[in-house]
């Protein structure tokens, strides 16, 4: 048995050692003579609606559009997508990412929601020297202490959410905040970011409570809110998924809006509004990375997406399309999929596609910058079309939307 394990270890080492070089297609500039994109995300649990299988569809759309754009001039016609369910578990994400890079010849991994899983994949990307665009996770550690040469962070992070919602709501009169957050890493991270943003904008956090996670009963906090002194202008909820649905339902039950306590949501996706119904969230403000009905350009893509999936895209779907497109464009420009060359191609690049407005791939920490939006859920009578639930109050310019590069980021892996 022991001898078997040793042999297995040796094989694993060999495979790892060989995976760096080209596998076949000797004269081609592409490993394996083709490009493989790997979408790794939640396909069965709480985050499967906001990204999941439809993000795989978005990546397929990116490949089709790329082929249509370059035709015979494309670097290769052989572009594949593989996908897997990481169940939001760090250990599963770790194994799947290694399999993607080693066994499936994946050149770039996309998406990976759930911060703990996302950070594991960043380590794998660094060890294997292969590219990784994170879209689904919110942790700023991806561009902070866990940043590395092969990892890029797209779409959003906790700083962007807090800075958008916390700062703007405070400047618009919500001076006193009561923050309720789920008692795990994401919630604690959001609470810190929000508190800092509110206080920086001259507001005051009058109370904060860590709620059990998961929970189906938030009434304790909702009863407490109006009794705090001073009375909070707004409850800032950092809950996500089913917890958020529970909290919003109960917020409406206790009629807190009528009692002068508003609601601000830390992180919300279009799919959350759809399942809660806009009526339940009317008037709620939050920060959005992208909105499908913002202008004709977004809408055009959202129409194609709806034709294929039957629903409107969340920002995660659009970001997956954009990330896949940017990767393919970089390979096209470099004529190779060799990771270090692609990283050099991407670093510092200024981009303007329908997702990345005024976009830039920041060299210092690989944060992908773009405009963000302060959004408000419409009143039921304002909703004229299914899925068009939001009005954009304000565009937050790319230069202000994200934090400055963190000193924690020592770009490693070079």
């Amino acid at each position, binding site marked *: 048995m022991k001898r078997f394990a040793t042999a297995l270890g040796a094989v694993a080492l060999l495979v790892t050692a060989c995976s760096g070089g080209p596998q076949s297609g000797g004269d081609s500039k592409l490993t394996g003579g083709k490009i493989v994109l790997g979408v790794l995300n939640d396909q*069965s*649990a*709480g985050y*499967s*609606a906001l990204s999941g299988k439809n993000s795989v569809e978005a990546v397929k759309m990116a490949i089709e559009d790329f082929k249509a754009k370059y035709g015979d001039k494309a670097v290769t016609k052989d572009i594949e997508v593989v996908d897997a369910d990481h169940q939001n578990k760090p250990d599963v994400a770790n194994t799947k990412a290694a399999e993607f890079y080693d066994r499936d010849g994946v050149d770039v991994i996309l998406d990976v929601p759930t911060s703990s899983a996302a950070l594991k994949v960043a380590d794998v990307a660094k060890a294997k020297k292969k590219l990784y665009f994170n879209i689904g996770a919110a942790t700023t550690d991806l561009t902070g202490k866990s940043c590395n040469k092969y990892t890029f962070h797209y779409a959003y992070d906790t700083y962007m959410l807090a800075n958008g919602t916390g700062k703007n709501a405070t400047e618009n009169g919500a001076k006193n905040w009561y923050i309720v957050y789920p*008692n795990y890493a994401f919630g604690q991270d959001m609470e810190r970011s929000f508190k800092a943003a509110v206080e920086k904008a001259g507001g005051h956090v009058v109370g904060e*409570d*860590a*709620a*059990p*996670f*998961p929970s*189906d*009963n938030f*009434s*304790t*906090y909702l*009863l*407490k809110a109006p*009794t705090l002194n001073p009375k909070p202008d707004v409850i800032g909820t950092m809950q996500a998924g*089913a*917890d958020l*649905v*529970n909290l919003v*339902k*109960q917020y*409406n*039950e*206790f*009629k807190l809006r009528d009692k002068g306590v508003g609601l601000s949501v830390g992180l919300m996706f279009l*799919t*959350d509004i*759809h*399942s*809660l*119904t806009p009526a*339940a969230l009317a008037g709620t403000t939050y920060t959005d990375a992208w909105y499908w009905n913002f202008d004709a350009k977004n809408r055009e893509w959202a129409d194609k997406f709806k034709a294929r999936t039957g629903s409107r895209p969340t920002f995660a779907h659009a970001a997956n399309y954009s990330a896949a497109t940017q990767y393919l464009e970089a390979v096209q420009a470099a004529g190779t999929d060799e990771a270090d060359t692609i990283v050099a191609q991407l670093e510092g690049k200024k981009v303007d596609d329908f997702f990345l407005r005024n976009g830039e791939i920041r060299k210092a920490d690989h944060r992908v910058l773009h405009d963000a939006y302060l959004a408000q859920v419409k009143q039921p009578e304002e909703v004229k079309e299914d899925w068009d639930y939001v009005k954009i109050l304000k565009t937050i310019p790319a230069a202000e939307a994200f934090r400055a590069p963190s000193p924690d980021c020592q770009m490693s892996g070079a």
Partner: protein
Amino acid sequence: MTNFLEQTFNGLVSGSFLALLALGLAVIFGLLRVVNFAHGAIYMLGAFGAYVLADELGLPFWAALLAVPVGLAALGMVLERAFIHRLTKLDPLYNFLLTFGLTLILQDLVKARYGVQSSPYAMPSALSGSVDLGLFEFPAYRVFVLGTSIAICVGVWALLTRTRVGMVVRAATERPELTRAFGINVGRWITPVFGFGVALAGLAGVLAAPMRAVNPLMGADLIIVVFAVVVIGGLGSIFGSVAVGFVIGVAQVWAEAYAPESWRALIAQTLPFVLMAVVLLWRPAGLFGREEIA
């Protein structure tokens, strides 16, 4: 002080769900000696039943309140006849595993059909206002939930202590062999009692739909707490299950509201299990359970 009473009242409301679910589990365990793990999934089906009736047929909440428990009782009786009663002769662990498997199947079937996003269910308009309870105002729907669950718990208690059926069920619960010796057909009662216990879980699910997220996993975490409630109260003890259900509901709310700040979430979350451990050390049969007589 007012806020304390308000929070306590609110704890009774969340205790309502625990009590209704624990009551069904206790009734089932009492007669069948089956620990029904699928109870949480049935609660979820209750909520989805209300959603489907409203969404597909436009039936109001009141219709669901009656139709869903009846429909689930029928489903429960089918499950009991088809699977559960075949395993009752064996170690109770077999039925525990069977109902655990049923839970996974039911959850995945609902997941495949309705997805994991929560399905929207509106508050019945008649109960969307507030009620003045003298010291404070409270959402009408919550008052209704508490009233309904107390009425049902009292009703079940009356049924068991004041009727012939109840007498048979209690006798069969305590001394199955002796009851049979009196010439009473205990087996006849098993299937309807299982259906009844399942109906209670379905009813709790319908009551949850307007105020909680309706999704395939809504019963998964709750059932673990309900098991703790049943164990603390004493497996098979009707009174114990109901009383402890309400007590745990209130205790969790108190912990969330008044425990030391940095410990709140942790205490609220672990409280039922810590209590369970303490009670088991002190009274292995639970607070109101009787030691089994061999």
